[in-house]
């Protein structure tokens, strides 16, 4: 049974239409923007819930041989509800965070368009449509991260995000090309796994590159670090439930392709596991709360990617949902402090939780979940992921477990620091990044409570009754069911790590080398600049000179040569030409003299001439015929 097609169109059209209207409205829509944005997000959530229940499918002609097809299956149903819920919470928070007079209509408009793009990507059952949503997300993220465009570094952060993810998106173009060349001209996602040999590999490689880029997995992670320059609600939406999650979603969706390729699964699994460990360590070294959360996002998405590579589709999806709730909560809490205190530096935030207790409590709930402590959400879902990894390869399981322990280190570190007693001179560290308001508005508090409830409550996934239902909804293969000892082991390790961190974090210093490397996100961006951007710039200026000197030089040379030849000809030839003209004139004069000679004035001579001429003419006519 499939639901009505209009439901899909409404689900995508509502945020898209309202977002576009707000954006076009510009300053005139300024006052209307916040209520309209929240209302649109709420209605979108309603439509998403309806879509999850009725499972609609829709299609429209796109171009020759390719239809734009959408379908909400179990995986998509979970995704649309997650995306719409987080979007609604974030937009409510934004009412408090993006103050009136800050181009609200542009902000809410772009956020809604972004949500629409994400909804397109997760409901698409066709690669062309998925690519459309995917790319629109990238472009909107450019505008959102660079929302405060007067600051050049923020805008450049947006451009880095866009260009990096787009560079990876070339993979999707290649995959689409491979699909067409391999005979899946309809570009249906479920047809990709059945491509013939060379195309299967190309499609797999393309999809993996695009997904790793979007999800800020190694080696693309650096764009997410820069993206933290954007407004907090943008980070909360883009870097929890949407943009970065889209890569994980794509790999979960296309796990049959990974499986069919043979090599795709291990590559993806290890990329995820490596990111979970390495970016986890990067997170430990951060001094900026949002940077810590960003690195942890890479690490946590790493578990989703690991799940996709290990074939644990349901486990990966559960991880995606739990992470979306937890991380959006943490980003919003960081944003609330940033708005109130004007800083996101961990040192300056010491004691912030005591000042704003509700924010502190919500943040702590999120941090404990992120740490993987039982019985909270990420503990349950991460263990399901690890269990599917164990079924695949013990080494993967070990790597994942290490990542889990590291996540306890950085989350508890953050939680501990914000609960430190308020130092007397604490306010000296405030207002370094923006002017704090010293209050957290009700608009900001509401979403925190709701998301904290979700981050905690989703731990029910550990109950077999719940996870069975969820796995049935996803209907994917290899529903990992962690054994008792696995749950116990991870819980025990997380508790020990968390306890140790809580106890000693203020005294322990991160080793300097690790700290420096982690702080700079392993120099990934510097490497990209060195390996990609600088050669590009050098090639650009070199080729520009080549164009000017060689290509255009050749043209100018030809022109110059022609000119020189003409001059030479003029010098040599003018005499000759004059001679020719003179000769012709002289010849004509002589001919004229000859022609005068027959004109004797004697009639019989004229008759004779006429007869000769006639004879010649007849002879010519005869000869020609």
């Amino acid at each position: 049974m499939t639901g009505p097609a209009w439901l899909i169109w409404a689900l995508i059209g509502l945020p898209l239409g309202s977002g576009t209207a707000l954006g076009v409205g510009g300053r005139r829509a300024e006052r209307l923007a916040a209520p309209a944005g929240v209302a649109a997000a709420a209605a979108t959530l309603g439509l998403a819930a309806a879509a999850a229940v009725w499972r609609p499918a829709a299609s429209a002609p796109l171009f020759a041989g390719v239809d734009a097809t959408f379908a909400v299956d179990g995986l998509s149903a979970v995704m649309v509800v997650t995306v719409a819920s987080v979007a609604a919470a974030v937009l409510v928070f934004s009412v408090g965070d993006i103050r009136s007079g800050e181009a609200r209509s542009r902000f809410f408009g772009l956020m809604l368009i972004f949500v629409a793009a994400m909804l397109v990507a997760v409901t698409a059952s066709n690669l062309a449509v998925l690519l459309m949503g995917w790319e629109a997300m990238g472009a909107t993220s450019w505008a959102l991260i660079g929302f405060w465009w007067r600051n050049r570094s923020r805008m450049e952060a947006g451009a880095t995000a866009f260009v990096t993810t787009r560079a990876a998106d070339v993979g999707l173009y290649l995959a689409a090309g491979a699909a067409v060349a391999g005979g899946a001209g309809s570009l249906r996602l479920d047809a990709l796994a059945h491509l013939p040999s060379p195309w299967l590999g190309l499609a797999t490689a393309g999809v993996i590159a695009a997904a790793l880029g979007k999800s800020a997995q190694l080696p693309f992670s650096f764009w997410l670090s820069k993206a933290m320059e954007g407004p907090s609600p943008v980070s909360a939406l883009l870097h929890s439930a949407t943009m970065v999650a889209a890569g994980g979603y794509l790999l979960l969706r296309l796990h049959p392709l990974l499986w069919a390729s043979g090599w795709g699964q291990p590559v993806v699994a290890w990329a995820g596991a490596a990111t979970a460990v390495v970016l986890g360590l990067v997170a430990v070294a951060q001094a900026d709360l949002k940077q810590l959360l960003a690195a942890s996002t890479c690490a946590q998405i790493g578990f989703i990617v690991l799940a996709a590579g290990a074939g644990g589709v349901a486990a990966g999806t559960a991880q995606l949902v739990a992470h979306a709730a937890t991380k959006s909560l943490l980003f919003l809490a960081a944003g609330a402090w940033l708005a109130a205190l004007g800083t996101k530096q961990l040192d300056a935030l010491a004691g912030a939780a005591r000042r704003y207790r509700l924010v502190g409590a919500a943040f702590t709930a999120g941090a404990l979940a992120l740490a993987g402590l039982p019985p909270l959400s990420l503990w349950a879902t991460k263990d399901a992921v690890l269990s599917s990894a164990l079924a695949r390869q013990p080494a993967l399981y070990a790597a994942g477990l290490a990542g889990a322990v590291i996540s306890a280190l950085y989350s508890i570190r953050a939680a501990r620091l914000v609960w430190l007693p308020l130092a007397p001179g604490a306010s000296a560290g405030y207002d370094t990044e923006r002017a704090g308001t010293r209050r957290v508005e009700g608009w900001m508090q509401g979403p925190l409570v709701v998301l904290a409830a979700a981050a905690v409550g989703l731990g029910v996934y550990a109950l077999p009754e719940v996870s069975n239902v969820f796995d049935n909804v996803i209907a994917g293969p290899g529903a990992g069911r962690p054994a008792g000892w696995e749950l116990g082991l991870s819980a025990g390790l997380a508790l020990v790590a968390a306890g140790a961190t809580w106890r000693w974090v203020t005294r322990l210093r991160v080793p300097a080398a690790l700290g420096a490397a982690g702080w700079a996100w392993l120099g990934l961006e510097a490497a990209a600049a060195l390996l990609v951007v600088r050669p590009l710039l050098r090639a650009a200026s070199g080729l520009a000179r080549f164009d000017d000197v060689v290509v255009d030089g050749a043209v100018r040379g030809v022109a110059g040569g022609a000119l020189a030849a003409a001059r030479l000809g003029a010098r040599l030839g003018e005499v000759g030409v004059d001679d020719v003209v003179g000769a012709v004139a002289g010849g004509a004069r002589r001919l004229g003299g000859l022609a005068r000679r027959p004109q004797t004035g004697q009639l019989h001579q004229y008759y004779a001439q006429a007869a000769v001429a006639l004879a010649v003419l007849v002879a010519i006519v005869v000869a020609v015929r």
Partner: protein
Amino acid sequence: MGPTTTFPYLTTLVLLPAGAAVACAVMPRSMGERAQRRAVLAVGTLAMVAALALAVTIAVEFRVGDGGYQMQSVHQWMPQLGVSWHLGVDGISLFLLLMAAVLFPLALLGATVRQKSRSYVVWLLVLEAACMGSFVSLDLILFFVFFELTLVPVYFIIVGWGSGRRAYAAVKFFLYTFLGSAFLLVGIVAVAVIHDQQTGHLTFDLVALQSTHLGLASQILLFLAFTAAFAVKAPIFPFHTWSPDAYSSSPTGGAVILAAVMAKLGTYGVIRFDLTLFPRAVVDLAPVLLTLGVIGILYGAIVACAQRDLKRLVAYSSLAHIGFIVLGTFALSTEAVTGGVLQMVNHGLVTAALFLLIGWIWDRRRTWRTDELRGLQRPAPILAAMFTVVMMASIGLPGLNGFVGEFLVLAGTFLTHRWWAVVATTGVVLAAVYLLWAFQRVFHHAPGPEDEHTRDLGWRETAVMVPLVGLIIFLGVYPKPVLDRITPTVTALVHHVDVATGRVQPLVANGGVAAAASTAATAATGGTRAGTAASAPTAACRHHGQSAWVDGRRVVCHVAVTTSTRRLP
């Protein structure tokens, strides 16, 4: 000959701007400077809007699903020389006509000139007549006359109203393209002479010349002669160096027409004449041209990264976009050629919009240099918003027109020439790089003291941009009506190439191209949305054309005979 419509739409379309040009030219000086200026502008605008209305009527009257020439008008012109006034429109030229008809009035209204406006309007009208004539001519000499005629107004527009090294740029443009055209003329005469020798009938009619038997060697020579002219006009790498000079020295209106409409004469010429007359040479030399196209894509994009002058930046980005058109054309699959034709329209709209916007920046600030501008988004938010949309279209963002064309070109190229497609795909990223860099330099950051007071777009300029942005979005969201009209012609053309070269086993057993196209149209009316997708081959046949790809097989629709073949690698 196809059916001739009662009203000579195409002839009128060509003669209307020409007549208006004459009317403007003879307008008496005695009426006073201001009055004359107003009258000339009114006549010019009126004529261009009337031409637009006519072009829209032509598009409405155009029969969907018919791949042949429509609305033909054939008149004797110089019967002794075999030259006739033969006009016709098909799916390839239809949207180029429409695009030109849209852009001319916008160029006139969006970029007025301060002095000598009468001659300016006259030259623009002559240019419109010549461009329209080039797009609808089905007689080679007639085409050549119109093709050459376009040079004259552009030369005078650059010299008269340009800036910078305008005389140099104008002469360079004129001589360079004129040199190319010399080869074209020789080629045209040679084809006609060969045809004359074979049939004893001297004609320059494209439809008649199509049946000329040419050996491979002569096809290649003639192809090179024709393509020399088109490659310069387009421009295709490495014949592009006139374009940065000409674009940056032109006045805004001239640059718009030069880059958006006239560049298409080159790529249009390749599709219309090269593919029709020299299919074997096209297939043989396709790798060369594909390589030039791919080089153009990457080279144009990389060189654009180094530009600090917005107009030169657009010139090099055009080189990249033209590269996509060349790629699509010589990939020779229906999808790719269709994408190429669509990309011509897309590039026209986007480039015109970019040049208009850049021209308005010049009007306000007298500079095009990105390092002399910054923070313009604050004083001029509408300008910034318009620029953003157009830039995103140029980057190829889905939902805007550039994406559809590029996607079809790439997908279609994957069918026939995969490695070129793989390399070309990387061009997609580079476009994002140089445009974002330039945009950020000009529009972002805190504005300087001079930037602070930059005027935003006025109502008139906004009114000029709105139709362009509307079309950019419309084509990006709903390209189907356009593709439905392009595809049958392209299918027929690709089929013509296939048959002429034996590249594919004959697709349609009998009936020929026209029959197949018409049956595809009948199938379309009979209901296109068959429920069971790939079960029956005919279900794959949409009204787009007579062939489609269903899971690896090229399925060709025909009422009686349905053959499915796989394209040879």
